[in-house]
C-alpha cells in the first residue's frame, strides 16, 4: 500500500508532524478555529489569521478539553472536545498529505507526554473516525519516541549514556537512555524526570531573566549529569531554539561531549517508530524499557507435551496498553495459579498467587481455566481467571476471579 508513515507529537500547546525518512517537520499550535459564517475549520497560522481578521473563533488546549470530556460552543453549535480534536488531527495530517501528494496512511504513531488508558482510547476513537484502520494506529509516549530517535542515529551516538534536556513553555525535562548489551538482545533503558525548576520562557526576553534561566539550567545540568560519561547530549524544545542566553549551560554540557540540537525529536522518533511497526520486529532488534512499557516479564509454568516450560504472557518492553494475553490450562492437583514476575533489569523474580476460591471440586484434570491478563497502567496488572469446566462432561460454573496486582 502506498501511503504516509507519520509521527505526530501531540501536546496541549503545540503539535509537531514528521514523516519517516523526511527531514521536514511541521510545528503547529494545538488550536482550531471555526469560521463564523460557515462550517470551515483552520489550524496553525491560518487559525490565528482568521481570528485576527475577525471571522474566526478559536479553541485552544484541545487535548486537555477532549480528555476532560469538555465541550466548546462556537456560533451556537456545541462541539465535543473529541470532535474538535478529530477535526484538528484531520487538518494536521493534510500538511504531509499535500506536501508529499499521498492521501493514505500506512502507519500513524502519535506520541504524547504521558500515556493513560483514557488518552489511548480517545486517540484510537479519533483515528477510527478518520477512517484509519486500528492496526495502523499506535500511541506511544515521549520516552519511547526519544528512544527510537536515538536508536535510529549512528551507533557511536548511543553506545554510552545519552542525555537530553527538553525545555518548553512551563516544562523542563531531563531524559536519559542507556543501551545494555545482553546475551540475546540489546536493551534500551530510558528514564525521564520532570524538573521542578521549569520556568516561563518569557523570562528569556530580559537580560536578568536570561541569566537566571542560565543559572537554573546549569544547576539542573550539574545535578542530573554529575560526572557521568555521555556519548551524546541532545537539546530539544522551544526554549533551545535560540541558545544565546544559555552561555554557561552550553559550556557545561559541551565539555568533551557531542551535543546536538533537534527541535522535533519526539515527532521524528514517532515516525521512526511507525517505520518499525511497518517493517516488523527486525528493523529495531532492541528491547525498549521506558515509560509506557513493561519493566517485567509475566509468565506461568506449564506442562506442554510432557515438558515443564515457561509460558510468557507479557514481555518486558511490551506496551502495557497493548497487552491482552490469554491462555487456557487444565489444573493438575492445584487450586491456584502462580504468576512469575521477572524484572528486566535485575532479573530477579517474584511470584503472585491467585487462589481459585469457590471453584468447584472435580475429579483430577477436569477443570479447565481461562487466564486473561492485561494492564490498567504500567504497574497494575489485571488478572482474570474463569472456570471453563470440561465440556459437557463437567459443565462450567462460569465462576470468574478478578484480581489487580501491582508489579
Amino acid at each position, binding site marked *: 500500500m502506498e501511503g504516509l508513515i507519520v509521527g505526530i507529537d501531540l501536546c496541549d500547546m503545540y503539535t509537531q508532524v514528521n514523516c519517516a525518512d523526511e527531514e521536514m517537520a511541521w510545528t503547529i499550535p494545538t488550536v482550531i478555529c471555526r469560521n463564523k459564517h460557515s462550517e470551515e475549520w483552520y489550524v496553525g497560522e491560518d487559525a490565528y489569521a482568521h481570528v485576527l481578521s475577525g471571522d474566526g473563533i478559536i479553541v485552544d488546549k484541545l487535548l486537555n478539553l477532549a480528555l476532560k470530556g469538555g465541550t466548546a460552543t462556537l456560533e451556537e453549535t456545541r462541539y465535543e472536545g473529541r470532535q474538535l480534536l478529530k477535526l484538528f488531527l484531520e487538518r494536521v495530517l493534510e500538511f504531509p498529505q499535500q506536501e508529499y501528494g499521498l492521501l493514505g496512511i500506512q502507519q500513524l504513531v502519535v506520541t504524547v507526554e504521558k500515556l493513560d488508558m483514557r488518552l489511548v482510547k480517545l486517540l484510537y476513537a479519533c483515528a477510527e473516525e478518520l477512517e484509519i484502520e486500528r492496526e495502523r494506529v499506535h500511541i506511544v509516549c515521549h520516552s519511547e519516541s526519544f528512544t527510537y530517535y536515538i536508536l535510529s542515529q549512528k551507533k557511536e551516538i548511543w553506545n554510552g549514556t545519552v542525555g537530553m534536556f527538553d525545555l518548553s513553555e512551563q516544562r523542563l525535562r531531563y531524559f536519559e537512555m542507556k543501551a545494555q548489551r545482553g546475551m540475546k538482545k540489546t536493551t534500551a533503558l530510558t528514564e525521564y524526570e520532570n524538573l521542578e525548576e521549569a520556568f516561563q520562557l518569557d523570562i528569556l526576553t530580559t537580560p536578568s531573566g536570561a541569566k537566571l534561566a542560565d543559572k537554573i539550567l546549569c544547576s539542573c545540568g550539574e545535578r542530573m549529569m554529575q560526572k557521568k560519561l555521555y556519548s551524546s547530549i541532545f537539546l530539544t524544545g522551544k526554549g533551545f531554539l535560540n541558545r544565546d542566553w544559555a552561555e554557561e549551560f552550553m559550556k557545561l554540557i559541551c565539555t568533551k561531549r557531542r551535543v546536538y540540537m533537534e527541535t522535533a525529536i519526539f515527532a521524528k522518533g514517532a515516525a521512526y517508530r511507525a517505520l518499525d511497526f511497518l517493517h516488523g520486529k527486525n528493523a529495531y532488534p532492541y528491547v525498549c524499557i521506558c515509560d509506557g512499557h513493561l519493566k517485567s516479564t509475566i509468565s506461568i509454568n506449564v506442562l506442554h507435551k510432557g515438558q515443564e516450560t515457561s509460558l510468557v504472557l507479557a514481555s518486558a518492553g511490551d506496551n502495557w496498553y497493548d497487552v491482552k494475553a490469554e*491462555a487456557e490450562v487444565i489444573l493438575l492437583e492445584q487450586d491456584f495459579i502462580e504468576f512469575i514476575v521477572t524484572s528486566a533489569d535485575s532479573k530477579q523474580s517474584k511470584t503472585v498467587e491467585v487462589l481459585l476460591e469457590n471453584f468447584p471440586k472435580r475429579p483430577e484434570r477436569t477443570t479447565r481455566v481461562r487466564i486473561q491478563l492485561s494492564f490498567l497502567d504500567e504497574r497494575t496488572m489485571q488478572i482474570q481467571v474463569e472456570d471453563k469446566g470440561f465440556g459437557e462432561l463437567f459443565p462450567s460454573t462460569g465462576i470468574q476471579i478478578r484480581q489487580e496486582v501491582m508489579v
Partner: protein
Amino acid sequence: MSLLLCRKEHVRHPYYIENLGVHIFSSQELAYVIYHYPLLVLDGFVGEGLLTFLREELELGFLALKLERFLKSGESTDEALILLLQETGYCTSSEVSKFRHKIEKLRKKHPAELKKVKADELFSMRQYGRAVELYEALLLLNSDGYVDDHFRGRVWNNLGSCYARMFQFKKAFDAYEKAYMRTGHEQLLEQLYVLSKLDSRLNVGERLKMLMTEERVSEWEKKMFTARENAAQSEQVKELERLFSQDETERLAGETKLLGKWKQEYRSMV
C-alpha cells in the same frame, strides 16, 4: 502440581459420543473419554466421524492421517486409541502404559463377558436404554463353555435392574423372575416383592409366593419403610416441599424447570 497447557481449539461442531450421551469440544475431553471409558471406545470408536472431527475441528490433520492409515492397514484399533492418547498430550506416559495394559486385559476376556462388562459400564453411567440393547443381544447367544444358564441368569438380573430404573416395572418383574429361575438368588425374591408393592398389577406366582416366608417379608417391609423414611428426608423432597409452599407464579416456574430437568434426565437414560 502444575498446569497443563491447552491447545487453541476453535470447535464449532462438537463430536457426539453416543454411548456417553455427551458432546466433546476439545482434544483433552477426547483423551479423557478414551482413558476413563475404555470399554465404550474399544470397538468402532475410531471411525470416519472421529477422523473428520480431528481434521476439521481440532485441526489435527496429521494425526487423522496416521489413524486413517492404521484403519486401512487392518491393524488393531487398540493401537489407534493409544496413539490418540499419546498425541493429545493429556495423559502421562505411565498412564498410556496403564491404559495399554487395561485394554490387553479386556481383550483376553470371553466376547460374551466383554459385552456384559460393557453393558454393566453403561448401567453404572445411567445409560439404561443402551445397556438393555447389549443385555438383550447377550441373551440371544448360543450356549458354550462360558454362556450357560448361570450367565444368562446374571444377564436377566441386570436387565431387570435396567427396566426398574426406567420405571418399566412389568418388564423388570419378568426379567427378575427369569433371573431367579436360573440363579435362585434370594435377593431376587426381594426385588420381586418390592416391585409387586410398587405396582399392584404385578402378581407374584404361587410357587414364588411360597418362598416368601413371613420372616422374609417382615424384613423386606422394614427395609422399604426405612427407604421411604430416608427418601422423605432427602434434599430433593425438601426442595419439592419448598417449591410447593411458594406462591403460584413462582411455583409454576419452578415446576416447569424441574419437570424439564427430569425429562432430560429420563431421555438420557433411555
